[in-house]
């Protein structure tokens, strides 16, 4: 995983409190797998992990984030021409899906890596998209999916756009409708747990996980989540190195841990 010093090509504000920085990075763009992330330098003692949201024909890569604290606030102030120091591509992204339908489920700032997945597999697989957020102004990239010819189902907690409620309803419907297929999801941990439970053991279910990180490269053992080892015994999985995309089968959920 090399280190890059990348110029910001464009800065977008898709929603209030959300910024997408497009970085000029043709070499990186060519090697990215959807679900991989960048560990981005910001002032302070730790970098910030952000998933890649897209690649573009110009050889740009996107980082779309919500401003939640000092790190993302600093990033949000970057302008075209400024440079970002990023370690990338980090971790394992989504595996190439098997033939058949693919469901992408994204919640909040978990949506960006699923857009990257839609870019990659939208033409080779029948892709359905379900996006959730607290409210309309936290729902990002719906238009980007539409521009790919996809028709995302939207849900918001407050009903301000799409269906009122969580993604679980539409996910359950999709699962009931489709005999087989596979699911890729990214979002808050409770959402991932709900999706994993709905999917159950019958179909592949890939989840892009979050955990507080130190190094981002597997060295410090900070970013662990509980998993089931090969022998079924509990083991720690490093999100940065073994993930962030993990099979739902490999994870132990808080209640099982």
């Amino acid at each position, binding site marked *: 995983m*090399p280190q890059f010093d990348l110029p910001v090509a464009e800065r977008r504000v898709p929603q209030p409190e959300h910024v997408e920085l497009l970085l000029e990075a043709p070499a990186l763009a060519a090697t990215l797998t959807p679900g991989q992330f960048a560990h981005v330098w910001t002032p302070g003692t730790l970098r910030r992990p952000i998933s890649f949201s897209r690649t573009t024909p110009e050889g740009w890569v996107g980082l779309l984030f919500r401003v939640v604290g000092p790190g993302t606030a600093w990033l949000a102030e970057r302008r075209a021409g400024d440079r970002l120091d990023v*370690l990338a591509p980090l971790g394992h992204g989504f595996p190439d899906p098997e033939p058949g339908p693919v469901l992408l489920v994204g919640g909040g700032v978990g949506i960006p890596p699923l857009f990257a997945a839609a870019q990659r597999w939208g033409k080779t697989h029948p892709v359905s998209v379900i996006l959730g957020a607290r409210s309309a102004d936290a729902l990002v990239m719906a238009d980007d999916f539409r521009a790919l010819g996809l028709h995302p189902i939207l849900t918001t907690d407050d009903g301000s756009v799409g269906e009122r409620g969580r993604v679980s309803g539409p996910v359950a419907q999709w699962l009931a409708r489709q005999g087989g297929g596979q699911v890729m999801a990214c979002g808050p941990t409770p959402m991932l747990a709900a999706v994993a439970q709905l999917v159950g053991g019958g179909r592949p279910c890939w989840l892009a996980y979050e955990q507080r990180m130190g*190094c981002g490269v597997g060295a*410090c053992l900070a970013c*662990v989540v509980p998993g089931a080892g090969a022998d079924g015994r509990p083991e720690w999985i490093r999100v940065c190195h073994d993930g962030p995309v993990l099979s739902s089968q490999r994870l132990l959920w808080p209640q099982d841990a």
Partner: protein
Amino acid sequence: MDVRTAVGAVELANPVLAASGTFGFGPEYDGLVEVRRLGGVAVKGIAPEPWRGNAPPRVWETPSGLLNSIGLQNPGVEAFVAEDLPYLRQQGATVVVNIIGRTREEYAAVARRLDREAGIHALELNISCPNIKEGGIQFGHDPGAAGAVTAAVKGATRLPVWVKLSPNTHDLAGMARAVADAGADAISAINTLVGMAINLDERRPALGGVTGGLSGPAIRPVAVRAVWEVSQAVDIPVVGIGGIQTAADVLEFLMAGASAVMVGTATFSQPGAMAAIIEALPGVLAHYGFDSVAAAIGAAHPGRWTT
């Protein structure tokens, strides 16, 4: 400019080592850090058997600092020897193995097992990790216990033994004398300070392990003073650790009495930090009027002040 140094019998091409726990076993930073260019690598603390460590979250950022509660998760000495040591050996790195245990015997067992392995240049006894809840913690502030574990390890290995001290005591000099008297070949100072943070949203401690170890530039003044005090209390060399980010920081530790230093937290933010420090060091030494690393060691000690 001569940047070579030595920690007792261990000769180092330069004074900058990777600090234990922040650099894994070396290959994790492959492509970003050339381990053979470093003064050396201290690997993650190794116990006789695998340790599970603490619940996540395990890190939390603080002003100029970092809290961690990894809790000394490690694969155990056998897995380390089989899976991790070969990479470092093959890279030709100067390897310091950090060892941990719950009892004196556990420390000695790891030391005995490693004594048989090629490619290890020193052992570093972590008697100071604030994250383990078992008996081990008392080694960190009880001179008697610290001396006893040092002697036990010395009896179990021919390798040089460095003892890594905790700053969470009022009597660093006493701790240093106790381990030096017990045969320690060098002292590493310091490990992390005990600290904690609250996650305001969740109304609970931010770390899964509740308290954690504070590292990073925030603790540099505590570390410099520890090196200053320890290097005047004992005759064995001192390895300075705590908040180092730049070549000027390295010089501060050298002048305080360190013979070498370790860089930890800075690598997270800037994997190239150690390489950049090594590159800048000759210029910084020259700027402050030194013609070698050796000349700078202890240069600010009493009796050597130029003003």
